[in-house]
């Protein structure tokens, strides 16, 4: 029985990863739709692994309903455009450039950006912490990379980005639960990434790739650490209570939170700075100001979380959990993930170079063309305006 479940779990995870990889490769809307549906299914299965939990049921139900609606939206959009174009061959690029926002909204739903973010928090709470990185991060990466391939200087993206940053910053202000807080922070980060996508210049693409890499690794490490931390009610105040056994967890989580809030010696600063500077290069001052302004409350709640670990008195010292503690093997794994990501700023070129190459590949520009007046550095839409 145990073996069978294990096998099932493995099949599910591999299918999730495979579908995500498939999604990045295809250029046809129909296949994109199919892969998205597949993703939804595997995600639902993985969520319902935790079937004894009531919250899990609630979350998976919500996700099912909402994604059903958004899928219908996608189908409708596809039908409409095929009617407009009068052709069955629906390539990604042609469709989105004709500004069909129905499909874009569906993609935004999948990314979990506001105003279609409602499922995200429930999903975070519904799933086991161990499965969360799989469910949340891998599909997101795939979808973002598909979104990168089509040129969408669309105001919908900007609107959604602004809403997401606001929602992510404000929503978690009073949040008591750790996972929900992380969910809101993911909404906030998604908003920043979408704002970068909206610009659609080469530097901004690079910045998004950087942000994606850094953010996903950070969140994965954090979730892994939380998985090994004992907290019954999933409260923020509870997270760091086991002082004796958790001192490594404490350090890891607090440094990573500092990195997420974008403080200079950590990599989170680099990615945020890159996005911000590419925004400023486009002379979109209000947008970058908005990003900074929404970063303030989010930093506030990150710091608030850390405050529990260092400045609050520990309520009870009797709790000792041995089963959930990390063994040495896991500790090494964690260290292998943590140290490179925290020491990125010693040699950022190591990450900047591949992201640059990838973004040039995605935007189909020759990588050796480095004149700053090049079209790829400054988006033509803005330039032609004045």
């Amino acid at each position: 029985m145990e073996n069978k479940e294990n096998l099932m779990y493995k099949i599910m995870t591999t299918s999730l990863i495979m579908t995500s990889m498939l999604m990045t490769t295809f250029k046809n809307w129909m296949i994109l739709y199919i892969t998205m549906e597949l993703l939804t299914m595997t995600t639902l299965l993985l969520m319902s692994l935790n079937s004894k939990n009531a919250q899990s049921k609630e979350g998976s139900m919500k996700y099912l309903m909402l994604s059903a609606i958004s899928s219908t939206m996608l189908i409708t959009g596809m039908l409409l455009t095929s009617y407009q174009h009068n052709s069955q061959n629906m390539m990604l690029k042609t469709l989105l450039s004709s500004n069909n926002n129905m499909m874009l909204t569906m993609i935004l739903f999948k990314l979990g950006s506001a105003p279609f973010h409602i499922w995200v928090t429930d999903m975070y709470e519904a799933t086991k912490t161990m499965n969360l990185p799989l469910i949340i991060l891998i599909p997101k990466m795939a979808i973002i990379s598909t979104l990168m391939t089509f040129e969408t200087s669309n105001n919908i993206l900007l609107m959604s980005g602004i809403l997401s940053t606001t929602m992510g910053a404000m929503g978690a202000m009073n949040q008591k639960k750790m996972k929900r807080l992380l969910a809101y922070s993911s909404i906030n980060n998604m908003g920043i990434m979408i704002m970068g996508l909206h610009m659609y210049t080469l530097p901004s693409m690079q910045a998004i790739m950087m942000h994606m890499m850094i953010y996903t690794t950070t969140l994965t490490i954090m979730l892994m650490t939380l998985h090994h931390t004992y907290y019954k009610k999933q409260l923020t105040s509870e997270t760091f209570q086991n002082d004796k056994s958790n001192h490594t967890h404490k350090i890891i989580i607090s440094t990573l939170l500092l990195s997420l809030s974008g403080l200079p010696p950590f990599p989170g600063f680099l990615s945020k700075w890159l996005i911000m500077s590419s925004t400023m290069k486009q002379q979109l001052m209000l947008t970058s100001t908005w990003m900074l302004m929404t970063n303030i409350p989010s930093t506030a709640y990150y710091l608030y979380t850390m405050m529990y670990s260092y400045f609050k008195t520990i309520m009870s010292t009797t709790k000792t959990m041995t089963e959930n503690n990390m063994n040495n093997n896991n500790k090494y794994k964690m260290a292998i993930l943590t140290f490179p990501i925290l020491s990125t700023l010693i040699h950022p070129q190591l990450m900047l170079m591949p992201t640059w190459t990838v973004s040039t590949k995605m935007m189909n520009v020759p990588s050796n063309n480095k004149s700053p007046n090049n079209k790829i550095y400054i988006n033509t839409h803005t330039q032609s305006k004045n």
Partner: protein
Amino acid sequence: MYLLTMSAPMMSFMLTLTHKEKIKTTTMQTLACSMIFFSWMNSSIMLYECMMNDTHCQTKIWNWMKTEHMECKISLHMDLLSSSMLFMVTSMSLFVHMYSTEYMKNDPHKHRFMSYLSLFTFFMLLMMSSNNYILLLMGWEGVGICSYLLMNFWYTRMQANKSGMKAIMMNRMGDIALLMSTMMMMNKFGSTKFENLTHMINNKMQTIMNTISMLLLMGAMGKSSLMGLHVWLPDAMEGPTPMSALMHAATMVTAGIFLLMRSSSILEESKMSLTITAWMGATTAFFAATMGTSQNDMKRMMAYSTCSQLGYMALAMGISKYSISLLHLMNHAFFKSLLFLGAGITMHTIKNEQDIRKLSSLMKQTPMTYMGLMTASLTMTGTPFLTAYFSKDQMMENSYKNSMLYWLATITAALTALYSTRLMYFSFTKKPQYTHTQKPHTTSEKDILMNSMIMMLTLMSISTGYMTYTMLTQQQHPLITQKLILTPLMCSMTTSMLMTTLYTNNNLHNKTTLTTLWKNFNSNAWNFNTFYNNMIGEKMLTLAHYQTYKHSDKGILEKIINNNLTNIMMHNSQNISKFQSTKMTQHLLTMILFYSSFTMHIKSQKLNNSVLFWKNTGCSFKSCLGQTMKHNSLMPQFAKLKIVK
């Protein structure tokens, strides 16, 4: 090899910091020493390459960052200046590392001390071998931090804390000046690389050049404790003696001088700042020497003498003789570290006593140290054919063009002789004022390592001057009157003889009010501290308390932000949380609402081809929030579509 030189101290730092419990202390110390020795070997090879073979090289280590609006490489630059500085730093560091294994024997925090020393060496090497101002700034800051950490090594002592704070405050001013000048260079010249900054001048740039070089001078003032920002140096003597020898005598304080030498191409473009540098140097030398004459604390006295020697170096740079300044810098490192290390032994002999009035007739107990200190003092006063003679004499002769500077320097030389005679007389040769109740230790110099250090440094401070003089500078002596060549020497000789006779005859007891006043004035360090504290520090603090804190921070900001804005934020975020309810219908409603509104948005956009958002036409920025979908950019696609239909 260049990288190994740099990374060996870093490795030593890492090892000593992390393996506190795992490796035995003595092993650790040997390891650290051998690392530094390795680094020293490398740097001497480098010195050989640069000095004898007359080469220089640049090594690119890695591309630190390269985005479309910024490019920064980390690369090293080795030429005569940096390699000689490297040699000096590593040899001093080696001496101090070895000395401190013995000196800190009874301290429980040997590991920490060793690791800080190694870290300091690393940052110093980084600073010396950088090829642009940004990397230099990095090393500069790191050196500052290490200085603070070491000064505050015994952090339970209040005085050490105070002095650390003072040092960091004073250094900050210089750091900010350096940062500002770096930014200015980046802005005006587009590069901070040293080679690119030569011959940058044109007629329009004079004011910019003046500003940049004045800022650089300000930076040097902070680090090298020239007059004005010097007040931290005497207080820095609160730390352990080996650290004072390494940082506040030999290496760190010369960083400012090094900076000025590095940016000589900029300084040469602005005659104003050169003159100011020369005058600053001469006055610093003079006034630090006067303060040195009336100090009673041994280490403070030495600190003032360091200050005075640094003034000499600045003077040499002010008259555009950079190589002489470098020569003096290297020579100074040897004899000054000898002075400090000897002082450390002397202090250990009599229960860590630093007051020279309480030390007496140590000649019998510590003959070796006496010998070393005597040599160092003689060197410092400029006795012919000892180390400092070569550089100091050259400097004096060259400064003759401006006779004021010359005479100031000569008086300083006399004063130098005065305070070093005083130091030697009081602590070594004078008869004790009390009778010994118990038999003094006759064998306080029992450690072989320490003794050999002293011996080696003594020999070096006798001989290095000749070597460095022949290798670094082959400058001709300027034409001056023949009588004047011997003037500084005669001055210092007469002063020391006078002092010795006066002291032995006990003729100094009849004090007049004027001498008392002068003495008080000097021993209060010309009231610089009082002035800074009463005029600047206190005024600023009161202003900050009443205006910034009481009115704006606790007044306006508290009212607006804490009482109103936070409440509003919290309330709103509560509402947003309510939005995340458990009701399915609500969720579906919002989804459908937004879906439809977003879809409608395209319709409107198609009609108007305009931006939905806050379009600020009067704004100087091109567009404020979003990018507009331009009519032209969409048209071709629509045209195509129509054709398809």
